[in-house]
């Protein structure tokens, strides 16, 4: 029997074995920690500490009144050295709070361990999630308390746990599922407590049999009313729309959120945070990052405090064995290439990937030969070759009419293109062009 999947998509080389068998290692560096005030989708935070203040682990250092946002917490104890602008991992310049660690990791969270969540009203759980600074850990960093507060007319029928991890090279979710499945399933139970009518489905790609087995055992031992659903290995299975389609056979209408089709999608790491925040009073101050790539000496999965520099992370993995031409935040399909490694890791950093010139080859574009590979790989059912053409002609209205705004920038079209065209980039340009035109006419 073939496993469930979505339509189209691609099969890039997985390269997972570099870090799939390396157990999570704790890394507690000292020195300077940098906290950008925007580590999520939504309103950036403002610093709530001053230069010279002493801060503790889990203490709020940035917050805002805005609903779609999440507070920023210190991951170390120490002194606020400066509040200034710094380059972030995505290449932007943002306001950051810089803390000099005292190496003590003294706890100062205001969260209290609640133990049994079942006696807590759901609204309290959502409040704790916000105060703990939890955002989608898969990479999109959408504030989790917002996800847990859907419009009242939208009934949540499925809670889909995203353990797909379809990006090549990355293993942070895989290792978490294998090593610490308890908080994941516990987090799912909390979500099911908030939405008692929802069915829990845990989606894992079939290339992680140990994770499937481990999670499955945890589910049955705890008596959790959820099912583990292995998915066929195909990129981008972990994309929210593809995942919801695979699990429920429903397509999210353009521009709509998962709640529209009764779904809530949570990354395994997000659930882990929810569990620790609610039952143990532990906020988000660290994350697991796969530090890997063909020029990393000892590729491994490192659990480090947020704000640790990428340089320190790479050093912790043994440094470089060759010259990296690209260093990515995230996986090779959707990751962002960094300009500098003196930037801090943030809540959405799932991987640090250093690639040689051979692994991250750049190519000269040639003419589109109309082979149709992009069309038969686009998971959104678009015609990428057409979008590429109209964007280069600056025909943004045509781009929009052809459905270009639905592009999820998964990169399948560029990956598969034999003419080596930068189609995904054209789609990004097209979306920006349409947005600019809308703004102008508004």
């Amino acid at each position, binding site marked *: 029997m073939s496993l469930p999947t979505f*339509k189209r998509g*691609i099969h*890039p*080389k997985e390269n997972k074995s570099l870090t799939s068998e390396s157990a999570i290692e704790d890394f507690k560096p000292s020195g300077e920690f940098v906290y950008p005030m925007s580590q999520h989708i939504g309103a950036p935070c403002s610093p709530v500490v001053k230069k010279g203040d002493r801060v503790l682990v889990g203490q709020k250092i940035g917050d805002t009144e805005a609903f779609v946002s999440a507070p920023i917490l210190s991951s170390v104890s120490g002194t606020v050295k400066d509040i200034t602008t710094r380059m972030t991992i995505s290449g932007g310049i943002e306001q950051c709070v810089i803390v000099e660690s005292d190496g003590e990791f003294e706890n100062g969270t205001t969260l209290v361990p609640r133990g049994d969540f079942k006696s807590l009203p759901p609204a309290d759980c959502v409040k704790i999630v916000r105060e703990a600074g939890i955002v989608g850990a898969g990479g999109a960093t959408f504030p989790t308390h917002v996800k847990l507060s859907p419009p009242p007319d939208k009934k949540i029928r499925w809670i889909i746990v995203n353990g797909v991890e379809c990006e090549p090279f990355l293993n942070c979710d895989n290792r978490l599922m294998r090593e610490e499945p308890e908080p994941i399933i516990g987090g799912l139970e909390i979500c099911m407590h908030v939405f008692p009518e929802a069915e829990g489905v845990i989606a894992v790609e079939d290339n992680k049999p140990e994770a499937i087995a481990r999670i499955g055992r945890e589910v049955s031992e705890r008596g959790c009313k959820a099912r583990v659903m292995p998915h066929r290995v195909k990129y981008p299975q972990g994309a929210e*729309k593809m995942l919801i*389609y695979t699990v429920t056979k429903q*397509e*999210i*209408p*353009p521009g*709509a959120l998962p709640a529209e089709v009764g779904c809530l999608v949570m990354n395994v790491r997000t659930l882990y945070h929810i569990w620790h925040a609610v039952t143990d009073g532990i906020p988000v101050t660290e994350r697991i990052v796969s530090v890997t790539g063909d020029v990393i000496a000892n590729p491994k999965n490192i659990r480090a405090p947020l704000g640790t520099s990428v340089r320190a992370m790479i050093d912790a993995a043994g440094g*470089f064995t060759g010259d990296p*031409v*690209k*260093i*990515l935040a995230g996986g*090779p*399909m*959707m*990751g*962002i*290439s*960094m*300009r*500098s*490694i003196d930037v801090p890791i943030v809540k959405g950093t799932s991987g640090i990937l250093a*690639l040689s010139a051979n*692994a*991250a*080859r*750049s*190519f000269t574009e*040639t*003419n*589109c*030969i*109309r*082979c*149709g590979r992009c*069309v038969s790989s686009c*998971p*959104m*059912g*678009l*015609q990428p070759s057409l979008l590429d053409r109209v964007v280069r002609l600056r025909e943004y209205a045509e781009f929009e*009419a*052809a*459905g270009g705004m*639905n592009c999820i*920038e998964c*990169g399948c079209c*560029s*990956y*598969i*293109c*034999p*003419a080596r065209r*930068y189609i*995904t*980039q054209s789609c990004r340009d097209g979306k920006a062009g349409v947005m600019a035109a809308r703004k102008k006419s508004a």
Partner: protein
Amino acid sequence: MDQLLSVSSSPHIRSETDTRRIMAWVIASLAPAGVVGAFFLGTRSILVIAAGIISCVAAEAIWQKYMKQPVTVSDLSAVVTGLLLAYNVPPTIPLWMVVCGGVFAMIIVKHFFGGIGQNILNPALAGRAMMLICWPIAMTTWTVRGVSGATPLAVLKGTDVSGTLPSIADAFLGNIGGCIGETSALAIIIGGGLLIYKDIISWRIPVVYIVTVAVIQTLLGRQGAPLMEIFSGGLMLGAFFMATDYTTSPMTSKGQIIFAFGCGLIASLIRSFGGYPEGVSYSILIMNLTTPIIDRLTMPRVFGEVKDHGGR
């Protein structure tokens, strides 16, 4: 690490398959048909093939150099056109005619329209059509191992009353009169099968095209249908290697089926009712012209949208 990092838009990895690799597989898949052609039709075929390839590659290189464009002959697409052109002419043809056909295909059909990916007609087929108009006798003089003879299609048509139909086995293996690369259905199926196996072409166009011709001609009650009908003439070569040309065929699955059905219909009508015994080339050329509209009408449905974009 002191060197500068390279910064670009994702994705940062690319598939191994590029245009050149695709063309190389097409060339490899065309090889069996050429070998069998040279075996049954005589070694002069090799000269014709060489003339086709050299004229196409040279025409492209000279044109691009003269037009101050990057010279792209290393993508091997000109080699494919040259091979296909040679496969579509008789082995006895004067070489200068092949050169004229190659230059016409490359410059007028391909580069006047913008080069690879931009042409609206299959260059090799348009080159062949030009040659058939200019030199009708030389283009339809058929021999097997130096002995002139009739093609099965000419016999079926009744334009060659002296000829007799070969056995199905001879037609399948390629021991019949015809163009260099079209006679051996077996060799073409092997090559075409390789292209399908390597995911370079889909089964849709060749299968729908051939089945359409087989069904229509059987329904029309043609002598020898369906097997003699599909093993003779250019149908096999056309269906596997010419109608599947990326640039001039639709990109969507649905569009490919419509396109292939149209090819099959037109080829059958020409064979049965037209002035020519063979209609494969023209059927593909005519359907090439419908490709933009087919693509437009068969745009895939965008994920999550209820209505498709077709006919917008």
